[in-house]
C-alpha cells in the first residue's frame, strides 16, 4: 500500500537532493529535471498498480492524518496523464533551463510542485486535499520570485492565496459531512462548499477572475516555470478538483451552470487578451487561459469526463505554447490581428475590460473595507492616547503639585499604589 505514496515521495526525494546539492549549472539542472520527471513517472506507475485500498498516514495529535486512494476512474487517468505530460514537457524545459536565472531553484520547485499535484489527485479527504493543494502556493511564489517574476508572484500570492483559503473553508464544511466508502468524490456538496471549492479551482485554472497572474508569470519568469508550474501543475490541480466537483453525485443543480458561465467569461477574456497581445509569451499564456475556459465549459455542459479530457488538452497545449514562445521577448505572430482588434472599438473595449483584471476590483473592495476598519482602529487608538495623556497630566499634578514632572514619576506612583493593594491583599492571603 506504500506504493500509493510513491508519486509524492519520489519527486520530493529528488527535489530535496537537488536542493541539498544546489547551485547547479543549467545543463546539470536539466538532467536532474528529466531524471526527476522519470522518477515521477515511475512513482505514478507504482501507484497505478497499487491496491485500491485507502492509505492513512497519521500525522500526530488530534487524529490528523493524510488519506490517499486511487480509484479506477478519473484519478487513475489524471495521475498517469500528468506524469507523462510532465515528462514530455520536462525535456524541452530542461533545454530551456540555460536561460533561467536560478536553474536548480526551478527544478526543485517543479518537482515539489508535481509531488503536490500528485497529492491533490490522490487525496481522499478534505484535509489531505487542503495540505497538498496549499503546498503548491509557496512553491509557485518562490519559483516566480527566484526567476524575476516578482509582480506576478505578488499577484499570484494575493489571488491564489485568497482562493486557497476558500478551499480551507470548504474543507471545514466537508469535514462535517461524512465521506463514507466512496471517498471525497461521493459527497453531496452543500451549496456553499461547492461555491468555495469552485472559487479555489478557478484560481488554479487561471480562470476568470483570477487570470491576471498567469500572463504576468509567462512574461516575467522563464519558460520552464511558466510551462511546468503554471500551465501544467497548477492547471491540472484545478482540473482534479473540477472533475470531483462536477460528478453527478456531488454538484448541486445550479453548480454546473455557474461553472459554464465562468468558462464562457474565461474563454472570452483569454481570447481577447490573446488577440491584443503584442508579445508572443503573453499571447501563448492568454491562449492557455482561453483553454481553461473551454475546460470549464466542458465541465459545466458535459460533465466530468469531458472536463478531464479538455483539462488535459488545455494543460498540454498551454505548456507547449509556453515553451514554444520561449523566454525572450518576441513579437506576436499575429500582429495584424492585434492591430485589427485595436481598430475595432467594441473589441478593443472588451479586450481592455478583459485586461482590467477583475481580481483587482476585489482587491479594491477589500482595501475600501480595510480602510473603514482601519479608521475604527485609529479612533480607538486616538481615544486611548487622549485618555492616557489626560491621566498622565493628572497624575503628574498630583505627584508634584506643579505643572509637570518626568514620565517616570507617575509610573512610580502607580507602582506604589499597586504595591499597597498587593500588601493589603496578601494580608488576607
Amino acid at each position: 500500500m506504500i506504493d500509493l505514496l510513491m508519486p509524492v515521495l519520489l519527486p520530493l526525494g529528488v527535489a530535496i537532493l537537488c536542493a541539498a546539492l544546489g547551485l547547479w549549472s543549467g545543463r546539470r539542472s536539466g538532467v536532474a529535471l528529466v531524471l526527476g520527471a522519470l522518477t515521477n513517472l515511475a512513482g505514478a506507475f507504482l501507484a497505478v498498480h497499487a491496491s485500491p485500498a485507502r492509505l492513512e498516514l497519521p500525522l500526530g495529535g488530534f487524529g490528523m492524518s493524510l488519506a490517499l486512494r486511487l480509484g479506477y476512474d478519473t484519478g487513475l487517468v489524471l495521475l498517469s496523464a500528468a506524469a507523462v505530460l510532465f515528462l514530455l514537457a520536462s525535456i524541452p524545459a530542461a533545454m530551456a533551463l540555460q536561460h533561467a536565472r536560478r536553474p536548480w531553484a526551478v527544478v526543485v520547485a517543479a518537482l515539489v510542485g508535481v509531488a503536490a499535484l500528485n497529492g491533490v489527485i490522490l487525496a481522499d479527504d478534505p484535509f489531505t486535499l487542503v495540505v497538498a493543494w496549499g503546498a503548491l502556493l509557496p512553491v509557485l511564489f518562490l519559483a516566480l520570485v527566484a526567476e524575476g517574476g516578482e509582480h506576478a508572484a505578488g499577484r499570484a500570492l494575493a489571488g491564489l492565496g485568497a482562493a486557497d483559503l476558500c478551499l480551507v473553508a470548504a474543507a471545514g464544511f466537508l469535514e462535517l459531512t461524512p465521506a463514507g466508502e466512496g471517498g471525497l468524490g461521493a459527497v453531496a456538496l452543500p451549496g456553499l462548499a461547492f461555491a468555495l471549492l469552485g472559487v479555489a479551482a478557478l484560481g488554479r485554472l487561471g480562470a476568470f477572475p483570477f487570470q491576471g497572474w498567469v500572463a504576468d508569470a509567462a512574461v516575467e519568469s522563464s519558460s520552464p516555470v511558466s510551462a511546468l508550474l503554471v500551465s501544467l501543475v497548477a492547471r491540472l490541480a484545478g482540473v482534479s478538483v473540477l472533475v470531483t466537483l462536477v460528478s453527478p453525485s456531488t454538484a448541486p443543480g445550479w453548480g454546473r451552470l455557474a461553472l459554464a458561465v465562468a468558462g464562457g467569461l474565461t474563454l472570452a477574456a483569454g481570447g481577447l487578451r490573446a488577440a491584443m497581445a503584442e508579445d508572443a509569451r503573453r499571447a501563448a499564456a492568454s491562449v492557455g487561459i482561453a483553454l481553461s475556459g473551454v475546460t470549464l465549459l466542458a465541465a459545466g455542459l458535459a460533465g466530468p469526463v469531458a472536463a478531464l479530457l479538455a483539462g488535459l488538452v488545455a494543460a498540454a497545449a498551454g505548456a507547449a505554447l509556453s515553451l514554444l514562445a520561449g523566454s525572450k521577448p518576441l513579437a506576436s505572430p499575429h500582429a495584424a490581428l492585434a492591430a485589427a482588434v485595436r481598430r475595432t472599438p467594441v473589441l478593443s473595449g472588451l479586450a481592455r475590460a478583459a485586461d482590467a483584471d477583475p481580481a483587482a476590483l476585489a482587491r479594491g473592495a477589500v482595501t475600501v473595507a480595510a480602510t473603514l476598519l482601519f479608521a475604527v482602529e485609529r479612533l480607538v487608538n486616538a481615544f486611548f492616547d487622549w485618555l492616557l495623556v489626560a491621566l498622565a497630566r493628572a497624575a503628574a499634578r498630583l505627584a508634584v503639585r506643579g505643572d509637570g514632572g518626568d514620565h517616570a514619576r507617575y509610573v512610580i506612583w502607580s507602582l506604589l499604589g499597586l504595591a499597597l493593594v498587593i500588601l493589603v491583599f496578601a494580608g488576607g492571603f
Partner: protein
Amino acid sequence: MGNEQLLATAVAAPLVGALFLPALGSFGRNGARLRGALALALALVPLACSALLLPAVRAGAAPAVVVAGVPLLQADLLAVFMALSASLLGAVIVVYSFGYLGEVPHQGEYYLMVVLFLGAMMGLVYARNLIVLYTAWEITAVACWRLIGFFREPAYVARADKAFLITGFGAVTMLLGFVAVYAATGTLDLVALRGAAVGNLAVGLILVGILSKSATLPLHSWLPDAGVAPSPVTALLHAAVLVKIGVYVFARLFDATFVIDPVWREVVPWIAGASALVAGSAALLENDLKRVIAYSTVSQLGFILLGFALGGEKAAGGALLFILVHGIAKGGLFLCAGIIEHEAHTKDLRRLGGLARRMPVTAGAFALCAFSVMGLPPFGGFFAKHLVLGGAFEAGRPGLALVFVAGSVLTVLYLGRLFAAVFLGEPGPAVAALPEAGHGDHDAGHALGNRVMVGAVALLAALSLASGVLVRFPSELAEAAARDMARTAAPGAQPTAAAAEEAGSACRRGEGLARAIDAGAVR
C-alpha cells in the same frame, strides 16, 4: 535533581541571576562577553528544566513547590508546553541580541530586563496561586516598560508609558477580579479552585486584564506603538512571550480552572473576530514595517483567543499549537525586520524595496516565516489554524469560522504586500544608498546583516517549516495538554464546594498541599 528542584530552578535562576548581569558589564570587554554568556545561560536554564520536567509531567506527575505551607508553583502539561515555547524563543532572541546591540549603551540594563522578563514569564506560567500569577504579571509589565523605552528618546518613553498604563490598568482590573474570586471561594489556590463556578463580574474584570495584555481590541493600541523598542525586544514582547501571557491566563483560568457562564464562550470569540479583522485591515494599510507586523500579531492573537474561548480539545489544542508556531514565525518576522532596520535605517515601506537581491537569506527566512503565519501548508501555522477553524465548525459556529477565514485572507494580503514592498521590485531610496554586498563591515556571503542575526532568523525559518513537516511532535504535546485541560476542568474532576472550602481553609491556615489533597480538592 528532583522535579520540584527543576521547577524551582526554572523560575528562580533567571529571576535571581538577572540581578548579577549589570555588574558584569563593568569589567570591560571580557565582562561584557561574560554578561552575554551568562544571559544566554540564564535563558537556557528554563528551557532545559522544562524539557527535563516534560517526561514526568506527561506521565501524570504534578511537581509543586510549596514554601511555608503555601503552594507557589506547580507544573502541568499546559504550563510545560507554554514554558518550552517561551523559553525557546527567549534563548534565540538573546543570541540575536548579541549581533543586534553592537556597541549600544546600557546593555547591562537591557540584559537584566530581558532575563528578568523571562524569569517572570516562567513564574507566571508555573504559578499555582493567583498571587504568584499576579506578581509575575506585574514584573513582566515593569520589564516591558523599561525595554520599550530602552532607547530613551522622549517619544519612545511616552510610548513605553502608554504600554505600561494600558496593561497596568488591565492588571489592576484583573486584581479586582481576583479579589472577587477570593471573596466568593475563600481561596487563591488554582488547584483548589478547579471546577469552581465564578461569577460574571469576576470573569469580566479578569477578562479586561487578559485583553489588555494580549492586545485585543479595544485595548490593543499599545502594541503597535511599542514597535519603537529594539527589534529583539519587539520579538520578545510582540511575538513570543508578552502577548501570549494574556491568552495563556485565559486558558489557565477559564479553560483549566474555573467554570464560567457559557455566555462568555459566545461573546469572547466575536471580540476575537473583530480584533482579527480590524487589526488585519490596519496591517493592510500601514506603511511602517514593524507596525504592520505588530498589527499582524494583534490579528493572529484573535485566532488563539478564539480557540481557547471555544474550548474543546480540538480548538483549544489548536490554539496551544498556534502559540508555539506563531511565536516561532512571528519572532522570525520581527527579527528579520530588525535586520532590515539595522541595515537600511528605516522602517518606512515606501523607502524600501528590492532587498531580496541584497539579503537573500533574510528574504528567504522572511518568506518561510510569513507562509507559516499565513497558514499555508506544510508550515506549522496551517495545522494550528486548521484545528482552530475545525473546532469552530465542530462547535456549530460556521459563521464565526468564516469571519476568521476572512481574517486569514487579510493575513495573506498584508504579508504578501509587506514582502513585495520590502524585498521585491526596484530598490527604494533607502536601499539604493546601501553599500554593495561584501563591502564595508558586512559579512560576505550573507550580503547585508551580520552572521549572528542572519543565523538566528534562518534558524527560526527552519523551525517554522519543521513545525509543520514534523507536526507530529508539537501536535501530540498540544493534544495531551488540551486533554489535560479539559480533564481538570471537567465536572467529574471538580472538587465539591465543601471540598474547595476545606481546601481553601487549609491553605489559609498554612497547612498546605497535603491538607488540600486530603480534602479531595487536588487530583
